[in-house]
């Protein structure tokens, strides 16, 4: 039996209607049509389905949607600001950080959360903080480049 519940996703309130055992991943993709959040194993072994819950990156495959009442959920679709892609989104596109693009939303959200806590992380911090997101295409290096470039963009924005 499905239940009805309000979820706050990307700054909007949604009336969601779903089976109570569904994970946030399933509800986002299947009930709210937000297919930007991807899945690679559904067991917490790859990091592909990362979303932000109140700003912290978590795996949406291991969170029940019913546990997200009153939580601000951010997905890749919610990263743009005033219809302008987030600097991370621009830099990932520009610098080769998204090859097949499938792990990209997860990396973007982990990175966004990181930059909010630490505006200019060094390489070692990036390696440690991104160690829960697997990518099979890039070898991670262009992902670091993109995050570092976006970090500079964000700081320039602040300074301006």
């Amino acid at each position, binding site marked *: 039996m499905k239940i009805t519940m309000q979820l706050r996703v990307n700054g909007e309130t949604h009336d969601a209607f779903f*089976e*109570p*055992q*569904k*994970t946030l991943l*399933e509800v986002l993709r299947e009930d709210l049509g937000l297919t930007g959040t991807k*899945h690679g*194993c*559904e*067991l*917490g*072994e790859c*990091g592909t389905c*990362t979303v932000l819950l109140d700003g*912290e*990156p*978590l*795996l949406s*495959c*291991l*969170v*029940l949607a*019913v*546990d997200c009442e009153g939580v601000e959920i951010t997905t890749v679709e919610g990263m743009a600001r005033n219809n302008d892609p987030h600097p991370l989104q621009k830099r990932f596109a520009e610098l080769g950080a998204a090859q097949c693009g499938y792990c990209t939303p997860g990396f973007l959200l*982990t990175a966004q959360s990181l930059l909010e806590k630490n505006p200019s992380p060094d390489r070692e911090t990036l390696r*440690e*903080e991104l*160690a*829960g*997101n697997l990518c099979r295409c890039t070898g991670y290096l262009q992902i670091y480049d993109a995050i570092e470039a976006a970090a500079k963009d964000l700081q320039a924005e602040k300074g301006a």
Partner: protein
Amino acid sequence: MMRLPTFAYRVPTDVAEAAKIIREENAMIVAGGTDLWPNMKRRQVEPKSVVALRKLDALRGWEWRADGTLRIGPMATLRELERDKRVEEELPALWKAIVSISTPLLRNQGTLGGNLNLDTRCFYLNQNYEWRRAINHCLKCTGHTCWTAPGSTKCWAVNSSDCVPVMIALDATFVLQGADGTREVKAADLYHVDDGRDWLVKAPDEIMTDILIPPQNGHRSTYLKLRKRDSFDFPVLGVAARVKGNGSVEAADIILNAVGPAPVRCSEAEKALIGYELKAETIEEARALATRAAKPLDNTDHMPSYRKKMIRVYVKRALEELAN
């Protein structure tokens, strides 16, 4: 998509109520969900009812008491704890164990209590339903044979927690609250049943409410972990070590984990250290004795013979670290 089966989901707001529901509904407990949900998706367990601890405020947070005891609420996330500088400085073994767990994302979600109650793991168990059917299921999950040791009457699934051996080495105490009341148990006594099916010495309705780590006056501790990748992977050998005494050793704890269904205390090795300085020959003797304490089997990553060999190396390195 791997999906959860249907179940009744209970989110009580007080511990006594939670314990009562667990007993009445034969429910399983979920803390962060990083262990139970995958196991349920693989249909290793299919509880009719699941009790979430997330709204039990009494189980959150942690504080240093005046006597130096650290009390941790089991629902404290691993990530919160690893960011605590005092934990890092005063309890290096615990801090090292915590930061080594899985990934930053999973540590955002996983709790210390969850890690201490982590279900035992095995290559013949942590597989999808279809896979397990192909081997006709195993002793821990609806089958009749332990495929790790087919002649065995017990289950050899491995205690794969990083924090369990540390808690034993640090002489921690847990407070458990069940439908019948509250009791305290020494960490060493919670895990002593050597069977992967029944690895916790507690009733199903007993909920861990407090983790108490006594002041480590004069003890130095560390934790080393063997695995293939520095992220994601469970330990396939964990070594927690603690010694007291400058100059000659007054007290020593060497606890191995992820080598069998229960953590292993290397009593002979510990004895060999007492009264001696942590020098090469002492360490050499201790590590040889420690190696005899465990016999890893072929149900995790890495060859079992290799894991056994690594006990020597990891115990040595742990003791060398503590000697300095």
